[in-house]
């Protein structure tokens, strides 16, 4: 019989690989009997769902942090020489 600690590890492992048969059965048995671990399984599922939503946007993450002083100017100076002139991408279409 798994302890809650071991069961929580298997709950977590599921998000990285498929459980083998022995692990799957022992986790299922534990979850049948342990409402605390059922709750934790739901909590972790929610966290994983959130991770999926986050994508790469994460606007709230460290949202108070800005580039250090002078960084903007340093980056702009580095970019200044490398900026290509606007490209001609084709003739302007006739209006109307």
């Amino acid at each position, binding site marked *: 019989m798994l*302890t*809650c*600690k*071991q069961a*929580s*590890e298997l709950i*977590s*492992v599921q*998000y*990285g690989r498929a459980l083998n048969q022995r692990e799957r059965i022992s986790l299922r048995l534990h979850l049948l009997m342990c409402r*605390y*671990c059922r*709750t*934790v399984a*739901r*909590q*972790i599922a*929610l*966290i*994983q769902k*959130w*991770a999926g*939503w*986050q*994508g*790469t*946007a*994460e*606007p*709230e*993450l*460290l*949202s108070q*942090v*800005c*580039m*250090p002083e002078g*960084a*903007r100017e*340093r*980056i*702009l100076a*580095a*970019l*200044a020489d*490398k*900026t*290509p002139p*606007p*490209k*001609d*991408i*084709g*003739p*302007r*279409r*006739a*209006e*109307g």
Partner: protein
Amino acid sequence: MKIAKTRAVTWDVNQGANHHFAWSGNARVFIQGNKVSGAGAACETPLPGWGGCSCVGRAGDQNLAGRSLSVWHNHLDMHWPKEMASDNDLREERSAQCDPQQWVAAHGDLLYRFALVRTGDAPAAEELVQETFLAALAGLDGFQGHSSERTWLIGILKHKIVDHLRQTYREVTVEEIDAEVDAYFDSQGSWALPPSKLKNPETSAEQEELRARLAKCLQHLPERLMRAFLLTQIDGLAASETCKVLGVTATNLWVMLHRARLRLRHCLEQSGFGQQG
């Protein structure tokens, strides 16, 4: 999800000419009921209702004469597309994209945060942002407008970060004891405190709250756990690749991810999110 028709305009089109349209938001574009496809590429955000999308479509090969272009969307913050832009407008738009001053102002801080949270190294983060802008300038022609400028820049930055992490690689071992995680269990391996049931967020306000709280919890994770979770679970970096850049074995990575999840769920509980008692 219900899709509301917001507006339809008639676009006076010269057959065979190139016409460009741009919009941001989660939008689907239809021409008289037919979704624009092929040469008139439509653009959709990969995650409905989340983030934004700006897109330049081209409808030159389609016979659009006298037809109406409608934009249907399910994104509240969608901005109405710029009025049917001509080639010249598009040229101006590309020039604007090329303006480093505007780039740095619009995306600099976000890219910096993105790099900082993943490298934990402020000077390196600044350098990575600079390298990203330089690479973006050099590869401007490669930007097809299928994704937003920001997504495109983040894509470049992600590669730079992985390269950087690889260079600074050093082997580490995961500490055997994580006192905080161990304290969640008693000596028998049972939960020391009963976990509280959390409400499943159904409304967008609840989802927003969950997102904000978890983002905050993520920041409070020990740095290595946060990075492991970010790279694999949010950025979608493969486990094998993450092991390389973090300098840990596969087993250690699973242990770290497990600890990160347990700490996140504990933090979420502590924050009192939607507790049902």
